[in-house]
């Protein structure tokens, strides 16, 4: 996934680049604001644009309109203005979303993720890892002929594991994810939930499905 950053503050765009690269996005930044930005990004490969509203020599709303005339890449406005009219203008000019400075890292990443997802909807009914099946509609997990029902947060946890197999998942990562889903858990409650989830997996003969990696986190494979 490639994200183009259009922001005139040098420090800010550098930090944004680092943040996004740390989260596995490819990043292209625009540094020249003397030339029209629209022409510069025309031939760049991109899945999403982060666009500042106040730019030297040009204005984010106009850039957005021009880009939208040419292609349908999603655009998120970033701005320090908190005025309603700017929010309204960003919608009118075709922007997908709007975030104000100083952005909260989690909200920014979540908005990026959602915006990209909306443009590329992938609809699964179930996910399978190592013969264990997670049914996304019924929120049950199955192995061979056994199945067990999951509560909402158990399901969310397991969904995260299923969508990131073979990766070591840290507690922080899980907490970030759960908070984004409006489950405001702390460290201890997360551990309790994981243990409960393991008990349920035991019922379908998969007690070691979620492995603990000492001092790092959890993993499924």
């Amino acid at each position, binding site marked *: 996934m490639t994200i183009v950053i259009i922001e005139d*503050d040098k*420090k*800010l765009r550098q*930090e*944004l680049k*680092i*943040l996004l690269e*740390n989260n596995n996005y490819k990043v292209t930044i625009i540094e020249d604001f003397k030339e029209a930005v629209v022409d510069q990004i025309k031939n760049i490969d991109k899945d999403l644009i982060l666009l500042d509203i106040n730019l030297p020599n040009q204005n984010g709303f106009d850039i957005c309109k021009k880009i939208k005339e040419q292609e349908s890449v999603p655009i998120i406005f970033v701005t*320090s*203005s*908190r005025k*309603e009219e700017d929010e309204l203008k960003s919608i009118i000019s075709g922007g997908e979303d709007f975030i*104000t*400075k*100083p*952005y*909260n*890292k*989690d*909200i920014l990443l979540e908005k990026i993720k959602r915006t990209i997802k909306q443009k590329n909807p992938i609809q699964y009914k179930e996910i399978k890892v190592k013969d264990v099946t997670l049914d996304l509609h019924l929120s049950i997990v199955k192995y061979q002929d056994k199945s067990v029902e999951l509560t909402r947060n158990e399901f969310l946890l397991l969904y995260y594991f299923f969508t990131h197999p073979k990766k070591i998942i840290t507690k922080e990562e899980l*907490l970030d994810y759960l*908070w*984004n889903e*409006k489950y*405001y858990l*702390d*460290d*201890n*409650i997360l551990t309790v939930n994981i243990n409960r989830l393991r008990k349920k997996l035991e019922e379908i003969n998969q007690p070691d499905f979620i492995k603990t990696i000492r001092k790092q986190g959890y993993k499924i494979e």
Partner: protein
Amino acid sequence: MKYIEENIWLCLIVIIFTLFQSIFLFLLDVNPSLILLSGTMYLLLLGIYLAVGYHMEAKKKKEIEDLVDNLDEKYVIAELIKKPKNIKNQGYYYALKKACKSMNDKISELEQKYQDYEEFIESFVHEIKTPLAALSLYSDNQNDQELKQEIKKMDNLVEEILFYARSEKPEKDYFVKQIKLSEIIHQVMMQNKDFFLKNKIKIKTQNLDIFVATDEKWIIFIINQIINNAIKYLDKQEKIIEMKGYEEKNKVILEIKDNGCGINESDLPRVFDKGFTGSNRTKEHSTGFGLYLCKKLCRKLNLNIEIESKEKEYTIVKLVFPNSSLHTRK
């Protein structure tokens, strides 16, 4: 009586004239009863004149008073009253006109100054957000939680400045829409997530799937202030912040409860006062503006804010959203 005092010269002249005429007529040997009659006539005429005059003046006074009382902006009165015929009153009229004019000039000067000031604040806040955003991302990338917390505090203070300036503004600059309590709370939670996790604060939410009609940014600011305030006074081993929504008599109520040190009963009525930081709650820096500003913004948004507390046990802040006809449950 005042009126007779004012017309004292007229009265005296008439009385003296009557007296002289009576003496003169008496010397001319005119019938005393006739003299008495003419004297009484003069005094009667004077009496009628004074009575009618008083009545008319009083009526005029009442008219002017009523006019002023019915005006919202009293200082436009000079434009509305008729120019008096009485020479003395013309003097007052002149003075009133001049006074109102100079006051109007002063008001527009102050309004202009205030507007400039407000624009300055807006643009200042706007400008400072960019370096703050850069710093905030820098602290994220370096994973420097301490720096991040300090930046968060700065951002809160900057927001306070902005909303204070906005709260003083006479015209409305908010935008009311339907929004779920859970959405509002979610944004506040995400803003404070790192702090909550680092300080092991337990968050409990309950029944927040209720819609309210309000301005999103303002309400987020208000709740953020309440939460930030609650955080400061958490003193127990197990720190808990609870948020719950419920409906009651056409109202939606959002309750934010913390199990912190609570507020002294005698301090409770003063927590919404400007600059009040508590008589014994001296720890942590505080501008004393947070709750004052909340109250002020709530009044503008037509919300009620209430506070309940038991010292050493808990504090509950209730936000009451009125008028249920707009609120629908999902």
